[in-house]
């Protein structure tokens, strides 16, 4: 990806540029190209510079209280120049009650004093990546839960519990040696329970049991467009266990997301195209 280009600008007559200079430096250190306009720029001058320099982002800084007039003026000027694809963000001494008003006027985000520079840099990165990547794709909501994985020490023992108390029968048992696991499928309404029994000591499921004991292991969500979803998630910083889809126990493309990014749960995505989520093949 090309380096992100940012124009840091001081609209109006305000002369306080400590913040503008510090942000410029921090964004440079984060690997971006930064152009600083210097003081006393009119909205026209700022937009002209932004277009000429072909920037992705304009960062406006004002500590004089003129933000309500000047920030929207920059947004308006960008529209006139048909350069609305440039992201506009702002910062400075901006009272809370003005923030909503500015965001309504088209300023994407206002950062108030005390915001860590790293946060601003990652916000810019995410937003620009999303804007560049053919725009962020809006996906359909997932179809539902595909299955729930439960780690067990013995399929036979676990299955007898589900059979005697819930009248659930094993539909099928599959061995997946490359993942070190034997899987039993127990259909339960629209969802399937997957009982996962480790094959040998090095099996990831065995490691899970050693660490946490048997029990809920993962949740699998049925989606369409698995590959595109993975690409977009990766771009927005979600940590993936499988960056490319692989074939799951039932023969569908699947991928796991890292619990670090999912607030602790191991999530699996299963691609289910043109079939109802409850039908098994």
């Amino acid at each position, binding site marked *: 990806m090309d380096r992100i280009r940012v124009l840091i600008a001081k609209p109006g007559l*305000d*002369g306080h540029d400590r913040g503008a200079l510090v942000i410029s430096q921090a964004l440079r250190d984060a690997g971006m190209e930064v152009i600083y306009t210097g003081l*006393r720029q009119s909205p026209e001058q700022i937009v002209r510079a932004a277009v000429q320099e072909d920037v992705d982002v304009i960062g406006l800084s004002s500590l*004089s209280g*003129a933000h309500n007039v000047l920030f929207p003026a920059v947004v308006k000027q960008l529209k006139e120049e048909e350069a609305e694809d440039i992201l506009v963000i702002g910062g400075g001494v901006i009272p*809370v009650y003005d923030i909503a008003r500015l965001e309504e006027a088209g300023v994407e985000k206002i950062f108030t004093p*005390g915001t860590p520079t790293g946060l601003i840099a990652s916000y810019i990165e995410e937003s620009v990546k999303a804007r560049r990547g053919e725009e962020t794709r809006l996906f359909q909501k997932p179809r539902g839960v595909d299955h729930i994985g439960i780690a067990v020490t013995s399929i036979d023992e676990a299955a007898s519990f589900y059979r005697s108390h819930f009248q659930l029968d094993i539909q099928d048992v599959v061995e997946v040696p490359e993942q070190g696991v034997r899987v039993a499928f127990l259909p339960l309404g629209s969802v399937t329970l997957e009982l996962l029994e480790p094959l040998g000591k090095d099996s990831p499921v065995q490691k899970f049991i050693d660490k946490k004991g048997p029990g809920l292991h993962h949740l699998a969500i049925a989606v369409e467009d698995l590959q595109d979803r993975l690409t977009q998630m990766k771009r927005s910083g979600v940590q993936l266990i499988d960056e490319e889809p692989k074939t799951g126990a039932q023969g569908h493309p699947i991928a796991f997301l890292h619990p670090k990014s999912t607030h602790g749960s191991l999530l699996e995505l299963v691609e289910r195209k043109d079939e109802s989520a409850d039908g098994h093949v």
Partner: protein
Amino acid sequence: MEDYKEAYAAWQQEVKDQLKKRPERKDTFRTGSRLDVERAYFPGKIDNAYIEKLGFPGQYPYTRGIRSTMYRGQLWTMRQYAGFGSAKETNERFRYLLDQGQTGLSVAFDLPTQIGYDSDDAMSMGEVGKVGVAIDSLEDMELLFDQISLGDVSTSMTINAPAAVLLAMYIAVAEKQGVEPEKIRGTIQNDILKEYIARGTYIYPPKPSMKLITDIFEFCSREAPAFNTISISGYHIREAGSTAVQELAFTLANAAAYVEAAMEAGLDVDEFAPRLAFFFNGHNDFFEETAKFRAARRMWAKMMRERFGAKKEKSEQLRFHTQVAGSTLTAQQPENNVVRVALQAMAAVLGGTQSLHTNAKDEALSLPTEDSARIALRTQQIIAHETGVTNTIDPLGGSYFIEELTDRLEEEAFRYIERIDDLGGAVQAVESQYMQREIHRAAYDAQKRLEKEEDIVVGVNKFQAGEEQAPDLMAVDDAFVKEQLHRLKTLRERRDNEKVEAVLEELKAAAENGENMMDVIVKAVKVYATVGEICHTLRNVFGEYTS
């Protein structure tokens, strides 16, 4: 006879003279347990080294203070910076503050006024009345000081590039009130070098700006001798992110440049130097700040005596205003700012400040409300009247730590000043962006320390509260802008425009011929020429500075 005995006798004599003029605030000063507190305390054995480094209060090198009785005689001036919206609204805030026991006025001007634009200029869009009061013509200035007698108050005006114009207006208002120019007291900031370095309200390039400043020096020594002609400011340098050492060094280097410019213009150092004032920042590091003020006095005394050959004591005495550090206020948990302000103000008082502005807790969010402005003023009144720190002079003097810090700050700052002298002086160092770069580096280092949590700011990178309560904030009503524009329009129709044009021509000629511009500017404001018109006339002659 040994020096220290002479010095001691001299101090005793001065105290005696001073007490005749103004008795101390109390006959005896006591602690809470009713123990007597002496005027000042000294080492067990006073020797010549003590005299050289510290001296007695009010004696060279003034490390312990510039007055023989300091706050026992008179407290510092409590001077809160205020101004917003229209002259009429600001006048009301001024009269409120005076009623609350404030002892001096301090005017904040809006940015168009500070950069020499009228309210109706395209460049003024969105800025009119925002960070201070909008002043276009003498008419506004008359409203600003309505019912405030300029013979009785001292007024500090934060105005730099157009300082000559606002001073001229002040003089004109005083005359209308029947107060002679020699009676007016106050300060104009008039420190253009720090504008290029840190604050940004410059208009003209450095050389003609320096000429305007020396014109003011000359004019005031002749016409308004009680007015401080400049307030050489480290405040904004520090706010821009400098260290305490840089604040000291760059401020005194700038001061040296003004002194040199005035001497080159043929003024006698002892004529103008007594009217030079300083303005420092009161920051967080308590002991370093106290030491900084003490070091500043000693450094300035040495510079004036040794480098510029000043003879008068008043030329050697560094008088300063302190404002506590706005940049240390946090938008998070704004109530905590009251505590920060109190501690910073305490350091300034222990450092011997002549006047003080304590910030309002909500200044990181917006302009102060009347409530928060009052708490800010009360904070310094508590320090003055309740803590007992005003009962003896330089109470921290003699602390091993404070004295060592004072020495180190002086040493480091003098090293910087030498470097600036090597670069050709402050004007050249400003033009080559030397100081700007040094400050930026320090500011960025501080930001990184904060983000790595090497430095802790309560409520920002540690001890964050949960949900923030939305504080009650001061909003400037924009309706007055329309009124301001309307008044300006009718003024332009009503005044004698031929006279205005003639005097602006005269000003242009004075600027081109290198004459003193101040006398003509006084004439111009009296016929109601506007700030913008006067500054545009000079812009056309001098050009504009761009960084």
